[in-house]
């Protein structure tokens, strides 16, 4: 792994779960990262890499990505879980209401069940669209920023 890691300048701990892999055959950019000796790095430098992540975490660009993600996902998840639970509770406790016929043999229960399918498909579409238009580009930019800052990005 070390030979792929551009000198691994930042002193990684072995128990770090993200880095005890063999990056088999992947191209790794070494964009301006100083080739430090791979061994005997003082453990304090591990904080530096974390420092980069903390800095990015506090950056406006990342906050924007995170807020957009959470701003969409949390309310939507709360809504569809509530809608599903409502359906579940109604189906088990109010069979009379659910059995009321709407058109021909189709009753409220059938409409509600198909509406669950429909909202699932609809929310899938909405989430993907939101991620593609509002999040993907900014996230990729941040990924590149981090790649140059930490020099450890494995790029495909």
């Amino acid at each position: 792994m070390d030979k792929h890691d551009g000198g691994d300048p930042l002193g990684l701990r072995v128990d770090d779960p993200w880095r005890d892999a063999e990056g088999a055959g992947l191209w790794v950019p070494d964009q301006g990262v100083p080739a430090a000796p791979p061994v005997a790095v003082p453990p304090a430098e591990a904080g530096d890499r974390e420092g980069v992540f903390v800095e990015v975490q506090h950056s406006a660009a990342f906050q924007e990505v995170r807020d957009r993600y959470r701003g969409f996902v949390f309310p939507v998840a709360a809504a569809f879980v509530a809608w599903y639970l409502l359906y579940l509770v109604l189906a088990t406790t109010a069979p009379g209401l659910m059995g009321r016929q709407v058109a021909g043999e189709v009753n409220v229960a059938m409409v509600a069940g198909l509406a669950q399918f429909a909202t699932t498909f609809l929310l899938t579409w909405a989430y993907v669209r939101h991620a593609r238009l509002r999040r993907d580009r900014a996230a990729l930019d941040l990924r590149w920023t981090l790649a140059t800052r930490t020099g450890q990005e494995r790029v495909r």
Partner: protein
Amino acid sequence: MSGGRMAAGLYLADSAGEHQGLAVVLFTVFVSVTLAITAWAGRRRSSSEEFFTGGRMFSPMENGFAIAGDYMSAASFLGISGLIALFGYDGLLYSVGFLVAWLVVLMLVAELVRNCGRYTLADVLSARMRQRPVRVAAGTSSVVVSVLYLVAQMVGAGSLVGLLIGGEGAAARTWAVIGVGALMVFYVSFGGMRATTWIQIVKTVLLIGGTVMLTVMVLVRFHGNVDDLLHSAATGSGHGEAFLAPGLKYGGSWTSRLDFISLGLALVLGTAGLPHILSRFYTVPTARSARRSVVWAIGLIGSFYLMTIVLGFGAAAVVGSGTVRESNAAGNTAVPLLAEALGGGSGSTWGTVLFAVVGAVAFATILAVVAGITLASSASVAHDLYTALRRPAARHGRRDPAEAAMEEDEVRVARFAAVGIGAVAIALSLLAQDQNIAFLVGLAFAVAASANLPALLYSLFWRRFTTRGSVWAVYGGLVPALLLVVLSPVVSGRPDALFPGVDFHVFPLQNPGLISIPLGFLAGWLGTVLSPEPADPGRYAETEVRSLTGAGAV
């Protein structure tokens, strides 16, 4: 009509020999194809990356098909449509829960897990915690969930073979369980993730193909008139209009209603904690392709469940609920009987052919699902349990050449673990042969939702979450879930229980989810609040930034 029903009911016992030959031929073809895939995939060198992820270069479409293949078990194909054929609308509640669960996976889990982990759930949970305790906890719960799910599938294989091929003989079921177990161990230990993924893809194509064919035949038979189909189903069920509304199965006592709410909660929250589903996201290169594979999976799974609804009502309308129940009390033979009736009825050539095709597809389904679960659980044993328990000292050392050997070692351990898990699953399945399949699947979902999901969501989204919180969340969900099952009417106190002779049941519900899922979340919160050391903000920053940007993802 009633005479025809009786004839169909006796059919399985009468002329098993006719379709037996064709079903065996079709199934042999499928097994040969999967063995060829395994041999082809097994020729590659076996790095752990290759073994556990198949090289991470599957396309979103391929992975979406494979996810759908992992998820659509025989319990869905035969079980849900059978439940609909017997109980009408109440069977449909299952398919809604199974599908809505995918929104949780899509929005909260798939991309973030892809960005933070390498092979298993424990990678994500332990990313910012102390490795050893968290890995052991997550590895243990993953193996428990997988074994429960495996037992459900293999019990299904046993009864399917008993019903479709060799009559009700106990010997045929035993051999079916052992045969399925041996095949799945072979696929996994020789083919790894690459072979397993391709087997899933082939299976999904077969399953969707078979389902589309039958659905079209049902709709053509009713001239595309859904109203007519529903009306005939209500008539054929013998329940009338009540068949089309909820309440036939779960509408009785408050206990059974609560039991169903518990099951529904487990279904919708459990999927995101299933180890074999989570490990599928590592077979694609990026979070974006993980997202796109889930979209494919939702499309396939959603349309599949919509079609099983048509098949279930179709079986009630064409075959009749009474005939289905005579053939199998749990309704598992509704779809094969429907296929036979659509082909022209018992004894006709097309009836025989369709019956055999459905049987072979169902068996292929079971085989593919068990292979996927075995792979995920052997990865947990090798990558989480073995690694954490064997090299705790490595925490303070630097990576050295021995680490490379460790990678090789992990694959070797995983191959042996597949054999061990296969043996355990075969033994348990033979013990649990008379258990209801749908119940066992519901139990696996409940344990996954209680033990894995709270810890996963906390570690992805909660800044203050600590090592102790993580360990408590896993055990705080796992132990109550299992304990409540032991104390439930499933294990003792009823004629159909595991130990019918004794009665130590205290907990009234069959599914523990309603209690154990909140307990998992509560334990995680409590463990975090009571932690001796606070969470490391730097490592949380790394987790958060990685999970949303994909920086440094392998």
